[in-house]
């Protein structure tokens, strides 16, 4: 890959403008109420690259809260046109970019299980495959951050096309993929070669952030350990405070369960795909009325099992990038890190 380049901080606005001339650009934008969320931008105005995390993860850019899959009438199916042009996302943290890469295992072409007939989701692919993702190295992790539990780091490059480091007066942009390098070539009049000092400064920022994270606990064999504690009564206490809302799963960069509904009026209508959550009772309620996960305990357990046991079994990685959003948004302070630690230490105590 080509070498790192430098973008003056004062040129970020121009840079994003130029990108936005030819594509949809998304970046973290600050609202008046203090929230920062990914939103469409035309330039640098309102862009806040300094916030550690946006409120919601950027998964909604590629897998929206609700989307129309197609419309129909008595004549047949009326496909929804995808805009089709390129997309760029500025200011994504490593945990979020990894989250998208994990979702690509589910919806896209990133993962092929031997012997499986691969289904690729055209809606996901029509957006994700068009996107060039600028990742931002985290300068100082939050107390809720735990990316290093599952192989991530403040300077992780998984799912990132160009890695950006905020050096204060400038951004160091390091292409990670060919796609990223090609995009940088199209704006090279705004860029200058990076100095050895820039590269060194960037490395220092990444190292400092890395050492600011507490060392990860030993979670070796977590996948199997969880299978072993499935029937433990400990889940009752773990689930007790949970009120069964979807704040955790909806803000999560990797949760991807959805519901499909048809909205029909006199033979005309549309098919919708919308986020769903394993925390909701209706999620598993069957047509007969029977619900295999009728109890909150079962649903909380499902969320943990899916992330750290079933998904690794199916896709080879944990379905969690340690962004910590579920910890910070939970209205009752449910902390999934403590749940894992409690289950691990409980299992160790019993000599499993």
């Amino acid at each position, binding site marked *: 890959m080509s070498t790192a380049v430098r973008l003056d901080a004062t040129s970020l606005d121009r840079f994003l403008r130029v990108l936005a001339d030819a594509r949809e650009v998304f970046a973290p934008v600050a609202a008046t*109420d*203090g*929230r920062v969320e990914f939103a469409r931008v035309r330039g640098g105005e309102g862009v806040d690259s*300094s*916030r*550690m995390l946006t*409120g*919601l993860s950027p998964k909604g850019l590629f897998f929206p*809260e*609700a989307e129309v899959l197609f419309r129909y009438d008595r004549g047949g199916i009326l496909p929804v046109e995808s805009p089709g042009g390129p997309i760029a996302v500025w200011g994504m943290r490593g945990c979020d970019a990894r989250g998208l890469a994990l979702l690509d295992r589910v919806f896209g072409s990133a993962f092929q299980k031997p012997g499986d007939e691969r289904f690729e989701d055209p809606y996901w692919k029509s957006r994700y495959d068009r996107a060039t993702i600028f990742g931002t190295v985290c300068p*100082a992790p*939050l*107390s*809720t951050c735990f990316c290093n539990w599952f192989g991530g780091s403040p300077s992780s490059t998984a799912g990132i096309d160009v890695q950006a480091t905020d050096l204060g007066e400038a951004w160091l942009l390091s292409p990670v993929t060919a796609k990223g390098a090609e995009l940088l070539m199209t704006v090279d009049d705004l860029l200058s070669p990076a100095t050895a000092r820039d590269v060194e400064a960037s490395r220092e920022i990444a190292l400092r952030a890395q050492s600011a994270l507490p060392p990860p606990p030993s979670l070796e064999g977590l996948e199997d350990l969880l299978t072993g504690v499935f029937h433990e009564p400990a889940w009752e*206490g773990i689930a*007790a*405070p949970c*009120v*069964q*809302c*979807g*704040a955790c*799963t*909806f*803000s999560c960069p990797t949760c991807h369960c959805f*519901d499909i*509904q048809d*909205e029909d009026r006199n033979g005309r209508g549309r098919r*919708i795909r*919308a*986020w769903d*959550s394993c925390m*909701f*009772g*209706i999620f598993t309620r069957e047509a007969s009325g029977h619900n295999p996960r009728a109890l*909150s305990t079962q649903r909380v357990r499902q969320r943990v099992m899916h992330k750290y046991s079933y998904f690794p079994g199916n896709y080879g990685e944990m379905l969690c990038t340690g962004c910590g959003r579920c*910890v*910070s*948004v939970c*209205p*009752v*302070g*449910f*902390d999934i*890190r*403590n749940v894992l630690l409690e289950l691990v230490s409980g299992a160790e105590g019993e000599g499993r």
Partner: protein
Amino acid sequence: MTIGSELRDTARRLLSEGTVELVIGWRRGSRPTAAVPAFVTDPEEAGSLVFDGTCGTNPAVYFTRDRRQYSGRKVGVAVKGCDARAVLQLVMENQVVRDDVVLIGVACPGVLDRRRVALAACGREILELEDRGAEVMLRGAGFETVVRREDVLSDSCRGCPHPDPGSVDLLLGTPRREAASGEERERRVREFEALPPAGRWEATLREYGKCIRCYACRNVCPACYCETCFVDQNDPRWIGGTCEPTDTLIFHLIRNLHVAGRCVECGACARACPTGVDLLLLHRKVAVEVLERFREEAGMDAGARPIMASFREDERQEFIMG
């Protein structure tokens, strides 16, 4: 003696005497800006209980969230003014047996809004919060700042007419506030009402446009306990699954009217919302309306009939009579 230590002593005593099997209160969680619900069954663990402005969850919600846990058990529950009203409202609605519950009232200084607290720290992460009463100290990596409580108070607590829990079995702390006049409480409702229709519509779309349908508001609400909520029915389906205004507004407006005369304006919904929808405004609007029409407020008297389930001949009926 702080309310927190009184609460710990009380819980310890109630549990060791066997008066209750369980005490629901709050303890410190992972985040310094929000204490988390605590379920204490062992007197030895009563020491983990706390009370201060970070105790924003309304513990009354647990009585109806998981009925298996609470029916037939003697439960002590720490309650702020609004929490006590929520429990009493549930008693009134035959959801909680008053004699099964020991209401441990805590004189409430008003709870903090974690978004305002975060704004006061200018986006820096708060690692430590100390509620000093009139002031709140926030500390993080390389900063320490003291802010006025007033500036970081939840909307629900501004002009709260009933900060001190009433009809409780025990009251900890000194009731210290005069009931606020209705004025401050109604100010934002009146401001909203004063907008032209287009302005009200725009503000409504802006707020509810943030909704992602996670139902945190509904699920932390003690008044929301329908066995099957209308949004969770799919045969027939009453509401679409999108985040378009037709769908989000139907959810919020129906919920709003369904808790009319039952909502105690605790603001737990607004604090729980992950995207910061101003949920309190419409609940308040309805509460103000109910107060004007019926001269009653939710959860004030466990012996009374629910406001919306009773009828008096002298009620205003202009919607029928013109």
